[in-house]
């Protein structure tokens, strides 16, 4: 299906990924590609398998079947930390703020290449550790200013509101210096003005740093304005894929959504 000549046009390739939980086939052969430097939205009715697919891509679940490649290397079944270090970072639908650590520490934690994260580095490379720590702190403050959490840098992350936590997670993801960020409902529970900021930051990271984004989002207006491409999932696989205006009028997509709505209305 995929030949080597095409893979440089894709940062992420997912082929026929399947995942079953007991009697539930959560993913039934999901296949998708993500183009480098793009902002792609992943949408679909509740239970379509979007978050499961995120878990499988980022190593939190092992796929039963199928192939996943990031930057041309297979990552299927790799542990999450290895995938993150390769440059593929995710956020969570329910934010995971490290509540009893400061906001600044939350962001600094995400920094790569800190020799002081190894015990040997702490003990035998104190200078290199301190030097890197200064850079990390500067960069972390810069990111916190970007998401306007800099005034809260020394507060416990547990004191942040839901929306602020989404912003914190976003800053933390950028701190990893990733090639690609996967955002699971970044706008859910975020007030509209914060949400607009977040979208601006996303575009900025895309333009200035060439970061690729794949986001799960339910707000159709957001999806239609921010993303260059929309992938639609239903019942564990991809049913449509293309520019927003085309996907929007795709009959399968309309059916998937209307079907859900009709059931909900009963």
């Amino acid at each position: 299906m995929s030949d080597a000549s095409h893979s440089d046009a894709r940062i992420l390739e997912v082929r026929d990924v399947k995942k079953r939980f007991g009697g539930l086939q959560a993913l039934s052969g999901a296949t998708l590609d993500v183009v480098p430097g793009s902002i792609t939205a992943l949408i679909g009715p509740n239970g379509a398998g979007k978050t499961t697919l995120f878990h499988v891509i980022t190593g939190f679940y092992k796929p039963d079947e199928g192939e996943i490649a990031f930057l041309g290397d297979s990552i299927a079944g790799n542990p999450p930390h290895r995938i993150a270090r390769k440059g593929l970072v995710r956020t969570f639908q329910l934010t995971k703020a490290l509540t009893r650590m400061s906001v600044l520490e939350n962001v600094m934690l995400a920094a790569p290449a800190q020799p002081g994260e190894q015990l040997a580095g702490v003990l035998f490379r104190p200078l290199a550790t301190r030097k890197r720590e200064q850079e990390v702190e500067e960069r972390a403050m810069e990111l916190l200013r970007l998401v306007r959490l800099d005034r809260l840098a020394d507060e416990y992350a547990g004191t942040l509101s839901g929306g602020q936590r989404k912003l914190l997670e976003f800053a933390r993801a950028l701190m990893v210096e990733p090639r690609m960020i996967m955002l699971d409902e970044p706008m859910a529970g975020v007030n509209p003005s914060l949400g607009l900021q977040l979208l601006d930051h996303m575009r900025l990271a895309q333009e200035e740093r060439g970061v690729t984004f794949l986001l799960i989002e339910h707000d159709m207006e957001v999806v239609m304005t921010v993303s260059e491409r929309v992938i639609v999932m239903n019942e564990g696989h991809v049913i449509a894929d293309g520019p927003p205006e085309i996907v929007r009028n795709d009959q399968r997509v309309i059916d998937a959504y209307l079907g859900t709505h009709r059931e909900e209305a009963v």
Partner: protein
Amino acid sequence: MTDPGFWIFVGVVAGIFAIFALGLQIQLGFTGLLNFGHVAFMAIGAYTMAILVVRTEMSIWLAGLIAIVVSMAFGLLIGLPTLRLRDDYLAITTIAFGEMVRYFALNLQGLTGGPQGTINLAGSGRAVSYNGEWVQFQRRVQGWLESLLGDTFLGEYINPNFTMMVIVWIVVIALILFLQRTVNSPYGRVLRSIREDEDAASALGKNVFSYKLQALAIGAAIGALAGLFYAWQFSFFSPIDFLPLQTFFAYVIVLLGGLARNWAVPVGAIIFAVIFAGTRFLNFWPLTEFDSGERAYLRLIIVGLILILLMAFRPQGIFGRRQEMALE
């Protein structure tokens, strides 16, 4: 109650328990690992050292070092299968592990001396001791202390227990300085992030499993160190010294002072040791209605009550911040 010799002994016990609890602090307080079998590492440390000294006539220093390494190896052994699982599995496994170590010590008579303890290490009827070299060392330190402090008001108190107290507390302080440096580094930041949310840590590229193993091994090493001092202080010991209760004493100490605070551990240990030893002075009515053996158990009840009251009214411990307990 005014006998200084008694309080010096309390100081020794507090110091040994402070070391022991520092090992738990790094696991529980900083990394969030529920180790309910911490006493096993103390037992492994004490027994490995004693056995090596008696069997191979090894120096106590080398034997002590090997004992610490062996304890760390057991920490890894217990962590490898369980640390990938949920927290509560580690808790269950470590309880079982602690008891297994004690039962092995009890029943492997040829190796450990069995229920009578290390006095039987070379087989029954041949009483042996492992701490001759330690006693010599302690005498030398005592000599230094006498020449240093002999003319001061402390001079009259200098005895083997006083010397032990000084040695143990120097170790406590050195250990705290080492741990402070460790936990206040980026390394410690990763440990704390695992305590807070290990999925977040791994999503940010941290090898959670490896860090948990390291924390378990560091705590095991420190637990073994406490075991060494325990062995050297009491010249002989037996499996009954390593009941699960000891682990819970370490929990009381850590929780008394406050989680994730190294300097709080010695304070917790001193309070614990004073309460624990001080209950022998509960010799007034109506407590005199109980005989002394029954009163000895009262201290366990009191320690338990303190833990309950602490959890109810000051769950953050003496030095903790209440705010931390409310954050979600």
